[in-house]
């Protein structure tokens, strides 16, 4: 009589035991190799590059586990400050004052491409006009030499490094309240690709055939022009560490600055770090975040 009633209870008791042992296994897996793990967080513009670099670094150093998270430059700064990530990624022209406690290493430079839908006829825009568009003072493509259609202004959320760089290069302004806000480079691209009247801006490395980048002040957004300094919408990409990088994070930053890392960055459309910083030894700037890069301006 007792047996049939006992059996289900035994079985149900086995389920939690199984779950607990599974959890233990997962925890053990998670703990394994914690010594050699590095977490990067921040800039969504640099995130795909960091993911690829992390993969390459993992292949060369199987004992190290590199994790890459997005979240935006502001998150990169706060994560590096509070230790949530050993390395913060930020792509700001001017680092905010609270980042002064961090050591910033320039690992690459990135152009900000101004993009429109391929159907749009406009080929060029001047910086003052671009500013006026984003302030909401120019609201129709007609005023820019295009067709008679309202401009859909697309911008990033206010924690974005791309947005803060874009706004500070154009000269600080208040974004028009009509602007559509998207929270990553990828969604900016989708929005502009889907809307014939949209204008947006995103990392030069992420421009593809679904959108078209326009000339700014008559200069096309291209690697040559960014390197030569004639294209002006350029921001540096920083890896931020609390104190000078040491141990595993330093190993990764050195790899990014080394020939293999820089080659991978360039192959995917970013620009290499300025020459002075390209060697691992000189890569660590002890001075807190430098201002706008000389070569970029």
């Amino acid at each position, binding site marked *: 009589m007792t047996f049939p009633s006992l059996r289900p209870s035994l079985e149900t008791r086995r389920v939690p035991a199984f779950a607990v042992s599974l959890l233990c296994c997962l925890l053990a897996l998670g703990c394994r190799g914690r010594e050699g793990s590095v977490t990067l967080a921040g800039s969504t513009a640099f995130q795909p590059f960091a993911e690829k670099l992390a993969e390459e670094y993992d292949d060369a150093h199987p004992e190290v586990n590199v994790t890459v998270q997005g*979240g*935006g*430059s*502001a*998150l990169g700064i*706060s994560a590096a400050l509070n230790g949530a990530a050993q390395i913060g990624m930020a792509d700001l022209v001017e680092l905010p004052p*609270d980042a002064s406690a961090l050591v910033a290493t320039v690992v690459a430079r990135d152009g900000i491409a101004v993009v429109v839908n391929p159907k749009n006829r406009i080929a060029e825009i001047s910086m003052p006009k671009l500013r006026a568009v984003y302030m909401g003072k120019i609201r129709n493509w007609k005023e820019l030499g295009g067709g008679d259609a309202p401009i*859909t202004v697309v911008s990033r*959320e*206010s*924690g974005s490094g791309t947005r803060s760089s874009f706004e500070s290069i154009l000269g600080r302004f*208040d974004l028009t*309240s*009509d*602007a*559509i*806000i*998207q*929270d990553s480079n990828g*969604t900016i691209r*989708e*929005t502009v690709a*889907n*809307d014939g*009247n*949209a204008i947006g801006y995103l990392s030069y490395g992420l421009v593809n055939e679904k959108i078209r980048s326009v000339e700014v002040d008559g200069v096309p957004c291209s690697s040559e022009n960014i390197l030569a300094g004639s294209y002006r919408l350029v921001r540096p990409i920083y890896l931020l560490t609390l104190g000078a990088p040491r141990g595993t994070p330093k190993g990764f930053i050195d790899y990014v600055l080394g020939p293999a890392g820089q080659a991978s960055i360039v192959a995917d459309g970013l620009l290499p770090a300025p020459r002075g910083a390209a060697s691992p030894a000189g890569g660590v700037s002890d001075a807190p975040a430098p201002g706008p890069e000389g070569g970029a301006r």
Partner: protein
Amino acid sequence: MNLGSDRLAPRLLLAVACTTMLCLLVIALFIFKEGLPFMVKVGLGDFLLSSDWRPDSGHFGILPMIVSSLWVTFGALLIGAPLGIAGAVFLAEFAPQGLMRVVKPAIELLSGIPSVVYGFIGVMVLAPFIRSAAGGPGLSILAAAIVLGVMILPTVMAIAIDALRSVPQSYREGALALGATKWQSVRMVVLVAARSGLLAGVILGMGRAIGETMAVIMVAGNAVKMPLSALDSARTLTANIALEMGYATGMHRQALFATGIVLFLVIMILNGLAGAALKRGSLKRRARGR
């Protein structure tokens, strides 16, 4: 042994139930602790009644977000509630049993689709369609309302079906015996008897619509301004918190917690209103019955 577990089980369940309550309490306490000081500092007027949201320069007006949340939610109800209830009436009253066996699981499956998928379809299909058909940026209140309307459909429908089925068969038979047609018996008897259940479904749907975040961020465009038409881009309370929480610090962070308080209160007020409507409805019915 058996007696011991018999005494133990209720206590264990009580403890579990208390944990749920405790979670709610802790969450509420935490949100209020983080957000209330901010509300006091900035002042309710500058927070709730200003439409100037520029956290970088110390302006924290969330009126556009409150209005947008309400617009989007009511838009979703306008689309989801009639469709859901009409579908439920058909399935519960008119459809053959075989059809019901196929359609009901399908509806339940619909509620299992992640919101990001709804959002994705909204961005790729709905927004371009609205842009070309009606103008505006496409990413708009209308797009969000339609996506949310479809998202709450399974909730509204499932509960409405249960409500209609719980109406005693004798009511229908009585109506038919008095000479009512099938449609008249449904409209005048079954729908009235199931009213509180139908409303409960709509309230649950409303809760889902106002709390939904991911799909809304994707299709509403998130512009911080007072929406003037259904084709305008808008940012809801939930989208505001989710978009900015990642990097907000100091006052800005507190402002987002305060936004959470407002969301909390808006949901409570809406639920309260719906509950009151429900109560009044049933009282009236009872009075009329007497």
